[in-house]
């Protein structure tokens, strides 16, 4: 990504934190301004981030604000990428939805809700997407969810090996 573009974003927003590593640019943004910031990235002609490549979350169980929602954005016209990160605490696990900016955010936000339990305000259809809709054993990609699953498997009736032999 061009230096001038990064400098422009830093100059326009004093509350975002820039980090550059592995030739990638990422911005940490406070939760309150996220939609305004994304709108700016989408609509500013010099930036023109028209393509939402990915939207996901990362769980950091030992940190104060536990979840980090990550947006990967791309501009097809300008050919540059950016990553926007927002921290969401566990006790108030909500963030505003970006579906008003990119329609592609719809399924991706549903997946984050499904896997991490982050609620997206003003989302048109916030339901679980990969797990069943009545799944109530928690959020699978949280770090405190065991890899082998929780509860459901124990309810299966297993035949003991001896019984099978008879």
């Amino acid at each position, binding site marked *: 990504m061009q230096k001038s573009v990064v400098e422009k974003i830093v100059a326009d927003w004093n509350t975002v934190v820039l980090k550059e590593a*592995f030739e990638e640019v990422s911005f940490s943004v406070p939760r309150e301004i996220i939609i305004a910031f994304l709108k700016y990235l989408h609509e500013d002609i010099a930036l023109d981030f028209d393509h939402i490549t990915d939207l996901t979350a990362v769980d950091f169980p030992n940190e104060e604000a536990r979840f980090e929602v990550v947006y990967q954005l791309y501009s097809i016209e300008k050919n540059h990428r950016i990553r926007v990160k927002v921290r969401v605490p566990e006790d108030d696990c909500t963030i505003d939805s970006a579906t008003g900016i990119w329609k592609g955010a719809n399924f991706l936000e549903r997946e984050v809700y499904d896997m991490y339990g982050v609620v997206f305000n003003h989302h048109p259809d916030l339901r679980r997407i990969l797990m069943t809709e009545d799944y109530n054993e928690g959020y699978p990609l949280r770090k405190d969810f065991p890899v082998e699953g929780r509860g459901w498997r124990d309810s299966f009736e297993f035949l003991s090996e001896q019984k099978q032999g008879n």
Partner: protein
Amino acid sequence: MGEPVIDHYADDVEVTPEKSPRRVEDMLLNMGPQHPATHGVLRIVLDLEGEIIVKATPHLGYLHRGVEKLAEDATYTQIIPLTDRLDYICAMTNNYAFVRAVEKLLQITIPQRAEYIRTIVSEMQRLSGHLFWLGTQALDIGAMTVFFYTFREREVLLDLFELLCGARLTVSYFRVGGVDRDMTDEVIDRLYKFLETFPEKIDEYNTLLETNRIWVARTKGVAFISGKDAINFGLTGPVLRASGVHYDVRKAQPYGVYDKVEWEVPLGKNGDTYDRYWIRIEEMRQSAKIIKQCLDQIPKGAIAADLPMITYPPRERVMTDMESLIHHFMIATRGFEVPEGEVYSSIEAPKGELGFYIVSQGGNKPHRCRIRPPSFINMGAFDHMARGYMIADIVTIFGTYDIVMGECDR
């Protein structure tokens, strides 16, 4: 042409039930999860008004195996076979996307020969993926013959994969730092031989379909999406390019040796299923061109980077000396240390942009391994693309994405 026959949002169609002599009601139709045209297990609930689709709600997750969760509990080497099972039609490109992300995190470069081999096998995979799509898509909408023709060529490619790495579908051929085995002269010769006749075979498929009036009528103007909408929905791959948007990761951010060979990105105009078919046909021609040039240019040399902490020792040595055997065992079981950091790296898979976002906190396992699945994100536009078409078109609309549920549900 190109526009659906009726208004997209048919909510306000003027029907007054009391006055109408016939009873009018909306119908809810369930399709799947075990429908032969869904290529896996996908369920769609269709809101119908007569034969017209008012709303289509996809219900995903029937093939959800929690690959992202499993990846957090596996070493980087152990994740490679997991990626095979995402898009199981195109395992090579999945491997490629993953190892490239890890290599970016480790900041290592790989030998030229390995780069060439990687490019060749991922283009072979694109050929076999597109051949699979072409055969099944035509089969789904009633043109059965093409299926037998495309699978004939796909078989040749799969045999070559078997010769190269011992497996046909779940290949696990890539390694962090290189590839598993060298490309033998026999593979290269057979590939040359295949490429000699392949362009004629493409013409053959073309003849079978383009002269089939029913097939043409069922694909032209079906599943239309405009370029602007396609970008807004985050679509990638042939679905995006058929709407005339020039975005191909291989050109935009070249990797492998794509910048050393000559090829073009085919672009569509109408954004319908027919254009997507045309794009894939052209991509096959381009892929054949890329493989040919790579085979001409491929240098001799090592196939894996010389980094004893990361790459396996050569196979011959593992079989003969003790130290190499222990070395191999250590890397296979304990993996390797990856520095702290986060990267996003993507490649152009046959379905679209396949990306991996890896967050590492040091150690031999990733803290988070996010897969950016092209099929899943393309599926997000399904409702938008299905509205206003007839119920008979729904199979075409599925088929247009080249969807594989293993990748969609992960």
